């Protein structure tokens, strides 16, 4: 198995190495911005996947956590000059609290009812944010949104004049979440989650505290999503209630993860990068032909992926990956990338 291990390490080094040198070749700020957004979406889809993919819950309201992180960090920065580097962890902490608050009553709901509750929470949050001008001493901006105070080139305040630093930060965030997801999947909690995904009653009968397992996983997911929200805010430098808390954000996370392959470590990463890149390319080259064309094609891709490749892009790549490693399709290494549980 040593050859396999070498190949694996080689592949990881190759991918990370390529990712590290991309900014040296892509110098146009617009292109680098698009690539950074691809990484961010891969990161956000992975954050969603931590709970929803691994535990088989369909949350359509994850934008709430991104918004919590972003708004807390930005308000602390705008009004109290607190560096977003610190503020993002306070925002993430707030998102964790919120996830527990939401999780307690909602986790007893099953399947579709849980999804509906998250839709209502997401839509309610947008309305609430839109109608809150000030929260205590903080300015929330209401429906006009919140502009992030400009500091010039201030690395200590998460503001850079060029796009490169944002790219590298997004890359580091993505690497961290992949490592974390890999750890989570192979941890005790990860096994709990895949058990309760298959059958919650059976999992409970085996002595798993289903609600606690869900709460902890949801808290991790909310934490990472909130950090992603802060990054989004600092990159765009403008917070718009619909864009950060609304269905655009929430549904995008879900679709990217589903197209890539939910419940797997690398699926959401692949989905986030591929699908977002496709959508951007279509918008860039064909956007002038018809309004909404890129989203139309984007929707079609999601529809056909769900219909014909429900396990996601990762299912297609798995074969080539195995061939590359020189092991059979049903090899023991299967666990590495793809969940053996299937559904």
């Amino acid at each position, binding site marked *: 198995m040593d050859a396999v291990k070498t190949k694996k390490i080689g592949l990881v080094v190759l991918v990370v190495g390529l990712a590290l040198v991309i900014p040296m070749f892509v110098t146009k700020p617009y292109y680098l911005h698009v690539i950074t957004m691809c990484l961010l979406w891969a990161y956000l889809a992975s954050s969603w996947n931590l709970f929803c993919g691994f535990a*088989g819950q*369909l949350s*359509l309201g994850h934008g709430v956590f991104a918004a919590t992180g972003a708004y807390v960090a930005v308000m602390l920065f705008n009004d109290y000059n607190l560096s977003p580097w610190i503020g993002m962890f306070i925002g993430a902490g707030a998102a964790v609290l919120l996830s527990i608050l939401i999780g307690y*009553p*909602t986790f007893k*709901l*099953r*399947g*579709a*009812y849980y*999804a*509906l*509750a998250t*839709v*209502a*929470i997401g*839509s*309610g949050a947008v*309305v*609430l944010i*839109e*109608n809150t001008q000030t929260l205590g001493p903080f300015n929330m901006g209401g429906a006009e949104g919140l502009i992030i105070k400009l500091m010039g080139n201030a690395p200590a305040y998460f503001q850079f004049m060029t796009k490169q630093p944002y790219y590298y930060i997004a890359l580091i965030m993505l690497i961290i979440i992949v490592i974390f997801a890999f750890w989570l999947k192979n941890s005790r909690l990860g096994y709990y989650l895949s058990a309760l995904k298959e059958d919650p009653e059976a999992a409970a009968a085996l002595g798993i505290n289903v609600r606690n397992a869900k709460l902890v996983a949801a808290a991790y997911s909310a934490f990472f999503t909130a950090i992603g929200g802060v990054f989004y805010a600092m990159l765009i430098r403008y917070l718009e209630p619909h864009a950060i808390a609304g*269905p655009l954000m929430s*549904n995008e996370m*879900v*679709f990217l993860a*589903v197209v890539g392959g939910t419940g797997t470590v690398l699926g959401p990463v692949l989905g986030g990068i591929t699908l977002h890149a496709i959508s951007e390319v279509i918008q860039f080259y064909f956007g002038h032909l*018809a*309004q*909404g*064309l890129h*989203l*139309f094609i*984007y*929707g*079609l891709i*999601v*529809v056909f992926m*769900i*219909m014909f490749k*429900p396990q996601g892009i990762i299912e297609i790549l798995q074969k080539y990956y195995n061939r590359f490693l020189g092991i059979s399709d049903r090899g023991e290494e299967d666990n590495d990338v793809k969940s053996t549980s299937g*559904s």
Partner: protein
Amino acid sequence: MMYKMESLSVIVNGISMGAIYGLIALGLTLIFGIMKIINFAHGALLMLSMMLSYWAWKFTGINPYLLIVIIAPLMFVVGYVTERFFIKPVLDAQKDVREPIAVLLLTAALAIVLENLSLMVFGGDYVMAKTTVTDATLVFGGVTLSAARFYALLIAVVVSGGFYLFLQYSELGRKLRSCGQDRNTASLMGINVPNTYAIAFGIGTALLAVAAITLLPFYYVHPTVGGVFMTKAFIVVVLGGLGSVPGALLGGIIIGLIESIGAQYMTATLTTVIVYAIFLLILFIKPSGLFGSRLEW
């Protein structure tokens, strides 16, 4: 006395808007009751019905209410075909999964496709079928009503009632309900379950077409109009009980009343938040809703 009349017209307006919510929710509840699918494309299909009705009215100029006879069958076909070609394959693949979440996602993706297709074809403008009905009012014993809303109420009540009777007493209605109760047993009794599913989806979509036409004379149409109504329809359906026909109409009227009465005392947005809060409370306390079966959820 004046005050009393005014509040009476607020109530009637609330009921009529609520009846439209109910009509929209009727299709949703039917599809859920029979197929156990939450249709996230419901709003987009409503938008499509409104768009088609608008353009049919624009070209022919006939009374929008008469368009029901064209648009409803057309939307039935759209729904039937959608079920056959998109939903059925995914549903079959997920046969053994207790909660077919993939289907839910599929309908959500279909909604994006439909919304952007109509943006491409019809453009993103806000349009409305301004007819003689649009600004007309009716006066009943001192209570002034918008004619379009009153007709909407009338149509909603008649269609919901008729639909209820159809489900209860017709042969097809019995087939539909039997598939909802237990599709395997229904299949053993010689019912063609896949076909019945497609018919259920078609009827649900046709009911949307009726709702679309009642909205046409007084509501602006644009590619994202469905979102507003879909969220309301979800709330209505959970309030009334997923799968319950009377629940849909009653739930719709309750939500319509909360909105119109609430609007008298607070901002419209605060009312929306209250509606969401009520929705969540019902989910947490009694997820089966007012009329839903205790066993369903």
